[in-house]
């Protein structure tokens, strides 16, 4: 019979911020905390920039054409976290769009929107997530 454990908070015993979980192949373990995204955001970067949905994001600021500053609510331990993301369009209007990474600190991530090469542009679909160690 399948068992379900209902709990609000999980904490490591040996190290409070470290819990191992068994991998899908049953032959190895992986660290639960390391595998969790610590921040993510989906926002509209056109017009008045607006967050559609997010996690651990305090604010989004329009810093110029295709230039966005995101503030993180609970900071990372340092600026070495890993960010991956993508940019897109709301309808099929041609061209290629991408999300580029710029300066970041333990509590901020600046990203740029690009349209067809080197030109920064305000883009309607901007998404990224951050992996790493929280402070």
């Amino acid at each position, binding site marked *: 019979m399948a*068992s379900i454990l209902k709990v609000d*908070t999980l904490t490591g015993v040996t190290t409070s911020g470290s819990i191992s979980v068994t991998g899908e192949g049953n*032959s190895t373990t992986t660290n639960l905390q390391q595998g969790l995204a610590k921040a993510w955001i989906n926002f509209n970067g056109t017009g008045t920039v607006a967050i559609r949905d997010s996690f651990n994001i305090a604010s989004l600021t329009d810093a110029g054409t295709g230039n966005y500053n995101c503030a993180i609510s609970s900071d990372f331990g340092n600026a*070495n976290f*890993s960010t991956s*993301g993508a940019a897109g369009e709301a309808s099929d209007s041609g061209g290629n769009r991408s999300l*580029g990474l710029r300066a970041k600190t333990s509590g901020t991530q600046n990203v740029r929107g690009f349209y067809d090469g080197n030109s920064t542009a305000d883009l309607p679909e901007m998404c990224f997530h951050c*992996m790493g160690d929280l402070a």
Partner: protein
Amino acid sequence: MTSVLNVDTIADKAGTGPVGLTKQSAAKFFANFEQDGTQAITKSFNASSIADAGTGLTTIAFVSSMGDASYIITTNSTHDSGSYVGSICVSHDVPPTASQVQLDFLKFSEALADAELCMATAHGDLA
């Protein structure tokens, strides 16, 4: 009443299999690395080594292998003002295996280049 469970390892009831995380999954790998100069990992999880496979080409090996090569990789684009802007791509010529992935940085001109602030995340099933 709020409940707190203190535990070091979570496995299924038999003690050997994975548990389900309700409506969410955990990443199995991520890396923040530099291609400029001597290639190096700045921060990673489940990465055992980094190898320079040529200009703009990086091979990263996993500590714990994936179950197969069907996992997904998300990467970033990078903009170095005045130098380059481009994207990190999964290599078609050297496709991912269960134990490693080759990541290629290409400018929008499609020329390979060594880039800074390269990042990738993998989701899927471990072996």
